[in-house]
């Protein structure tokens, strides 16, 4: 193969940069936000209070609580938090459902406590960090109907406040949306509409896949007849919103897709998708005129045995996309890995040490405000209700050390 001097020098530079970066400290330094409860089951971020710093929300499944952690400025200091009750919580998120300027907490629960619960925030910043000031109310139409697994807040019908798109697993498994009523605090007025039957929803992402101006729903479903990665097409017409939406298969229909994420290539107006499969490999789906091309990337041999999540971003700031992956089955193995592409393919490096067994999804975010992307995740020690895992943690990218003023 002929490689032009210009391309050769770029590849050489890329290899040099990757090598230089790889020689930096691996694994990365781990910092703990909280490890004092049981079963940290995923982390999401939100600008919750008024300080423009990213705050973290995490449900603790075995602990039966959800905590919203407020960024302390210096992320190595103690993260103050507010706590709401949430038995068997599987996912937690923030959204200002009643549009009072104070983001509320929404929790989704499975097990024997199947429901979606809104925890209304007090409309006073002095009270916002006081747990007793929060008021928890279940949405009646969600109680005991199915095991709720994942949710996002989104304006679906352009009516009233934010709606909730929610997915579940097991009997009655479904993906649908909870339509917000005129007064969202009247919880018995929320209505559920099924978009598509599901087996075990792992991810829900909103993105305009077909570029028609309306956000579609991208999902990964790991079990059942409808398993796979697919997108549900926004019907565009109001009168079709409450019926099932057209679904389009992307791939992994014979496998077990876990969490997914999205990216764009600089020369494309379409959205690429990256998904972790449970075993063997992760997949990069590339939109083409005829559907979706698929590029499989084998899991690093040093990583945990079961893939869990994938996050995409320019971690080493060399201008190309890097992958951060998390794993289950990571006993004596690495639970968080970084993959950098070079001219000889993907090179893998451990971000974590070998502590931890079951990691959840990873998010790339600059938590220490030093200008590079750190990795936020959680580890739950195989759902133990007696021995806490690593909890809510973040790994510090060693690329930049200088803190922002």
């Amino acid at each position: 193969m002929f490689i032009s001097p210009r391309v050769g020098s770029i590849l050489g530079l890329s290899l040099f940069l990757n090598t230089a970066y790889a020689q930096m400290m691996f694994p990365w330094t781990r910092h703990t936000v909280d490890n004092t409860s049981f079963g940290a089951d995923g982390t999401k971020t939100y600008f919750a209070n008024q300080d423009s710093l990213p705050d973290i929300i995490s449900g603790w499944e075995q602990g039966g609580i959800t905590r919203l952690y407020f960024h302390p400025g210096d992320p190595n200091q103690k993260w103050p938090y507010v706590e709401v009750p949430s038995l068997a919580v599987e996912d937690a998120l923030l959204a200002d459902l009643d549009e009072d300027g104070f983001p509320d907490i929404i929790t989704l629960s499975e097990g024997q406590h199947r429901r979606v619960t809104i925890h209304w925030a007090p409309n006073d910043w002095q009270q916002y960090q006081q747990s007793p000031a929060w008021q928890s109310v279940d949405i009646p139409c969600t109680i005991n109907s199915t095991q709720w697994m994942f949710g996002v807040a989104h304006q679906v019908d352009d009516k009233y406040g934010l709606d909730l798109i929610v997915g579940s697993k097991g009997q009655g498994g479904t993906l649908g949306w909870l339509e917000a009523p005129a007064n969202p605090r009247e919880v018995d007025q929320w209505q559920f509409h099924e978009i598509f039957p599901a087996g075990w929803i792992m991810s829900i992402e909103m993105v305009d896949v077909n570029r028609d101006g309306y956000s579609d729903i991208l999902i990964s479903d790991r079990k059942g007849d409808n398993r796979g990665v697919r997108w549900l097409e926004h019907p565009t017409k109001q009168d079709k919103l409450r019926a099932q939406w057209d679904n389009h298969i992307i791939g992994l229909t014979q496998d077990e897709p876990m969490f997914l994420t999205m990216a764009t290539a600089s020369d494309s107006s379409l959205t690429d998708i990256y998904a972790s499969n449970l075993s063997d490999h992760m997949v990069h789906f590339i939109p083409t005129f005829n559907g979706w091309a698929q590029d499989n990337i084998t899991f690093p041999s040093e990583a945990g045995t079961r893939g869990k999540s994938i996050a995409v971003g320019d971690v080493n700031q060399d201008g190309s996309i890097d992958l951060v992956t998390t794993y289950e089955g990571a006993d004596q193995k690495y639970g968080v890995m970084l993959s950098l592409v070079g001219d000889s393919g993907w090179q893998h490096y451990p971000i974590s040490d070998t502590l931890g067994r079951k990691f959840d999804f990873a998010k790339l975010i600059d938590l220490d405000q030093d200008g590079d992307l750190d990795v936020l995740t959680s580890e739950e020690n195989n759902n133990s209700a007696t021995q806490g895992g690593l909890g809510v943690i973040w790994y510090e990218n060693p690329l930049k050390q200088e803190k922002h003023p």
Partner: protein
Amino acid sequence: MDFTNLVYLKVGNVRQQATYQLLDELQLFTHLADYQPILTGTVPLGIDIDSSDLDICCEVYKLEQFAQRVQKYYGHFEEFTCWSSTHQSVSTITISFQYQHWPIEIFGQGLPTQQQYAYRHMLIEYRVLDLANARFKDKIIELKQDGVKTEPAFSQLLGLPDDSYEVLLNLEYFSEEQLHQLLDTKGYLK
């Protein structure tokens, strides 16, 4: 580069990622979907400074109706202001507010967003930055930190005559080779 697909922010630099989250929290592009919004300005180009705002341009023909819609969703945010003026000989409306200390400016005009100056300037600046070396980008940021606006900063470094907002648009007709040459003569070619 397609600036109309916001997913590029999700895999962008630190500030672009934060912007993606912030826009999602506000549901800005969902609420304004009927107006073909596009994020413009310096954040998409990675040349923003701490005081940079998030600029969103929209295609708006009924200014009052648009203002009411924005007011409905964002009227309660700090420093919410709304004013109308004429730009490119077209009636325009500008709405600004703050969210989490981030200044946000929404600009509505009765022109398709891809014909508006803000978007056209951004595309030219993107092409230039794509061909320019790191020193050029650093100098742009430096000038901005000294108080020079983005378009005058580009014009200054490229040695373009005054009235940078109009003059910069002339570069739309430059081929890659011509841009290449322009940067080369100024010592900013990658």
